[in-house]
Structures are given as C-alpha cells and as structure tokens.
C-alpha cells in the first residue's frame, strides 16, 4: 500500500488530486459522477463579496486542444455561499477550498475574513490571476508590488493555509512566486489561464463578448509544466500544479517537475470522472514503480 497523502503547511490532503476552481462548481455539480470523498480536494468556483453576473454570452470558444473562457467570475457572492453552499459541503470528507477574488485589496481582505470564520474551510486559494475581469484579477498577479500588496493584506487576517494562484501571463513567474512567498504565502498554485483570443473569420468579429478570454486545456500543458519546474527551483513553499492535465501521466509529470499536488480543470468538461481516475492512476504508478509515498515523486526530475 502506497501513501498518497500530501501536505501543505499543516493541512493534509488524502491524495494530491484536486479539482480546479471554475471547473467543478462547488463540488455538488459533479457529485452524480464521482464520490467527492475520493478527491484530495475541491477548489470551488471563484467567489466574490457581492454577487456577480459575469460577462455577456458568448463566453466560450473551442481552440485546438483547449478552450477560451470569458466567464468573468459569475457567482452568487459570499452570503449565498454561507447560506446555501457551505451547509451542504461542510461534512463531506474532502478538503473544500474557497477561491477568493476581489476588485480591490479591501474586497480580498473582507472576503477572506468571512471565509476565515467558516470552520470547515481549511484553506483559501487567493486568485490574483483571473484574466476575465475588468478590475482586479490578473492585474494584481502580473507585477511583484501589487501581488505582494494583496498577499500581505490577506495574510494579516488569515492564519490557515494560504495558497496564492499565479498568472502565467508574465515574463518571469519565479519573480512573482518569490514575491508572494516573501509575504507569507503557504503555497502557490499555477497556472491560471493564458490570455488568448478567438476571431470569427466569417463575421470578422471576436468570438467572445469580451474579445479576449482565458486559455486552458492540454494546449497549455507544456508551458504550465515549465513554469512549475521553474518555480520549484526558486521557492521553498509547495506548489499546486495545473494546466491541461487530462490523465494520470500528465499529473505525474507535474509532480516530477515539482508540484506537491495538482488540480484538474478543463478535463472535467470532457469527463468529470477524470479526477478520480487520476487518483487511481497515480496509485498504480507508485505501486508499479515501487515508490512508497506520493510525496517522493515531487520534484524528482533527473537532469
């Protein structure tokens, strides 16, 4: 029997496979397909203080081995989360993480405080990398000073594990990773989506209502993997890796490159049972290769 569990700060995940924010709702939406308690964790849909309608339709374009989305953080706000979501998930045997968003530092802080009060939310993922909102979002995540400012402020009001989600739309992601590590982040998760665009050659218009959107899916995997490896070589805190993971092999590659855990996003749209298949696949891989602990894989790339 191999040990699949991994640890971020003092938080233990029963296995390294989480679902990515914005791709699994609040968990309940995929409960028909999978037993949520088999997952290492669930990172829930990006939440904001106030309800948000998100961007106009169309919000999606298929691309080669990927997709663009321009959802824009549609969500019913934290009040609704507390009242209607939290009671349903709080007793499920997995780690439910809130993806925290704001347009201003004050909003990030206020929302974090609200989430801090919820006992059964063991960690937050601070999203400073959403490319689909006009204010805040990615703007915070592409420069060191602004990334530092948000993390510093949030860190003050939050003692539980703080995961900061990084944008790949930068020249040097290690710089940003080190910056947020310096402000006390307990882990970084990467990558969020790449800023992309689709054009309809017939109408000569953008496909998305917002012109640009966020690219996800296997198309981005090679870049995401490179970034995980680079960040692994420049920070000490654990990394949650993601970007195009479709199967156990992909997940294992991210772990070898330096990810302590992985998130599965767009793959869920293709098949919501993939995250659990990946848990099984990692287990088999470890057994086959006689590796005792999933954590032994992390960063074991032989150069």
């Amino acid at each position, binding site marked *: 029997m191999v040990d699949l569990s991994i640890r971020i700060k003092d938080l233990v995940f029963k296995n390294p496979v989480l679902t990515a924010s*914005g*791709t*699994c*709702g609040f968990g309940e*939406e*995929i409960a*028909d*397909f999978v037993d949520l308690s088999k997952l290492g964790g669930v990172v829930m*849909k990006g939440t904001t203080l106030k309800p948000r*309608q*998100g961007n*106009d*339709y*169309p*919000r*999606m*374009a*298929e*691309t*080669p*081995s*990927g*997709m663009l*989305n321009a*959802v824009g953080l*549609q969500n019913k706000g934290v009040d609704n989360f507390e009242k209607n979501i939290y009671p349903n998930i709080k007793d499920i045997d997995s780690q439910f993480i809130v993806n925290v968003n704001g347009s201003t530092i004050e909003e990030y802080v206020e929302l974090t405080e609200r989430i801090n009060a919820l006992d059964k939310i063991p960690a937050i993922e601070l999203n400073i990398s959403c490319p689909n909102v006009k204010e805040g979002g990615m703007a915070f995540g592409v420069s060191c000073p602004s990334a530092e400012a948000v993390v510093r402020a949030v860190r003050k009001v939050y003692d539980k594990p703080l995961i900061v989600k990084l944008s790949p739309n930068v020249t040097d992601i290690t710089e940003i990773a080190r910056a947020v590590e310096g402000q006390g982040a307990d882990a970084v998760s990467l990558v969020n989506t790449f800023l992309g665009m689709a054009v309809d050659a017939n109408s000569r218009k953008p496909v998305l209502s917002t012109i640009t959107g966020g690219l996800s*899916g*296997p198309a981005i995997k090679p870049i995401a993997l490179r970034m995980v490896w680079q960040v692994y070589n420049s920070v000490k805190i654990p990394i949650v890796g993601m970007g195009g993971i479709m199967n156990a092999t992909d997940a294992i590659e991210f772990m070898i490159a330096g990810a302590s855990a992985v998130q599965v996003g*767009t793959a*869920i*749209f*293709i*098949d*919501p*049972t993939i995250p659990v298949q990946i848990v099984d696949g990692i287990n088999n891989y470890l057994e086959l290769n006689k590796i005792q602990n999933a954590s032994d894989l992390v960063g074991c790339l032989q150069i």
Partner: protein
Amino acid sequence: MKKTVEELLLIKNTQLNHDNFRLDLKSSTKLPQIFPGQFVNVEIKKSTEIFLRRPFSVLDVDYENNTFSLLVKILGRGSNVLTTYQAGDKISVIYPLGSSFSIPGKDEKVLLIGGGSGVAPMLFLAKICGLDPQNVHVLLGARSKQDHVDITAYKHVGNFYHTTEDGSLGEKGFVTHHPVFKSELTAFDRIYTCGPDLMMKAVAKEAAKNQVSCEVSLENMMACGFGVCLCCVEKTIEGNQCVCTDGPVFNINKLTW
C-alpha cells in the same frame, strides 16, 4: 435523474437526407429515464480537431432495448466526423442532461414547431405527451424539400404541416407564415419550439403577443453540459442562467427576448 458518463454502442447510423443522420445508441445497462427536450453530450474522438463534447437532443427512446437516438445535422467539423461513425463503434456520452418540456394537460391543444435539427425534441415530445392526436399539431420548417427530415415513424402522433422557404414542400415561407400559426394561434394552449434562433424568436414574439404559453429550446455554446463551466448562459429575468441545467427548455416569459 442521475447523470452518467457512459460508453454507448452505436448500433445504427442512418442517413436521412443530404446532411442529417440518425444515430441509434445502445446502453449495456438500463437506460435512465429521459424526457423530451433533454440532451446528451457526445465525445467525438475520431478527429484531430475536436476537443470538447458536442450536445445533441434526444430524438427518441426505446426503453425496452435500452436504446435512444439522436438526429445529427452536419454543421461543422464535429458533427461531420460524428456522422462517419459506424455501427459497432463506441461513443462516450454524458446523459441525460438539462431540463425538459412541460407536459401538456390532458385536453390541451398544442402546437410543436421544429426547424432544422430542432425537429428532434419536437417529435419526441409529440410522442410522449400522450394527447389525442387530434390535439397535437406539428409544424416543421426547412429551407427546401431536400432539407426536410422525414421521420415517418412519427406520422401518427398528430397533424403535420410543412413550410419550406422555396415552397418545394408544404407552404412557402417561414413557419410563422403558415396558416396554422398565423390564423389559429390563439386556439392553442401551448406552443413548443426548437430550431434556429431567428425562427424561435419570431415564434416567441407572436406567442407573447397572443398570450399563448410558449417554450423554446436554446442551443447556446457549451463547454461542459452539466453546469460547472458557466459558459452557456442566457440572460433571464432572474439573471444569467445556464442553458445546460436551467434549460435548454425555457418558457419565454423567463427570457429577456
């Protein structure tokens, strides 16, 4: 009804006209109950170019044999490749998805309007709603005779009318030009429609004006089909709603059309 991901067996692929095919799919276990208006999300593996699944409405269900069928119109890359699948191929499907049409009351008189591949849920509904065929009126629109999809199995469910834009079958013009729609509209208790956006909007407008209850089935672009991506939203009076879970069937009084 619980949603599942399942590999189904394609037992028959029938070409209905130049660009429409009927695919009959068989489950190896007991089929879940599927209601008219619901859809399935189909994986299309046999192409280098397709990444996401493609949604198709259910055309008919045979619970005895655990089969159901889809009506696939060739529109782009995915639908094109899907129609080349052959009996014996396996196809992964997520189903059953979405909301269904409301079932009419026992003595209600209903008008079902289908355009293009939108005829699929219309005919399933016609069959299921168990009304006296006298009370069921089905109006099918197409560009011309050769675009019309003839699903003869349904001929007994009610009264059939056709329109074609070039007049090669039935009345010439759009569905909204047909006498059954133009002059008898208020005689109906409910109108159901599925097809091109413009057609549904024209139908909805007249239905609203005449205060006849009207349900439409939307075909917004979908990434997941089961409510997690929030890509398929439609503006409603209650804000953005997901066509894949709150719909695809909406009563027009909920829409902002």
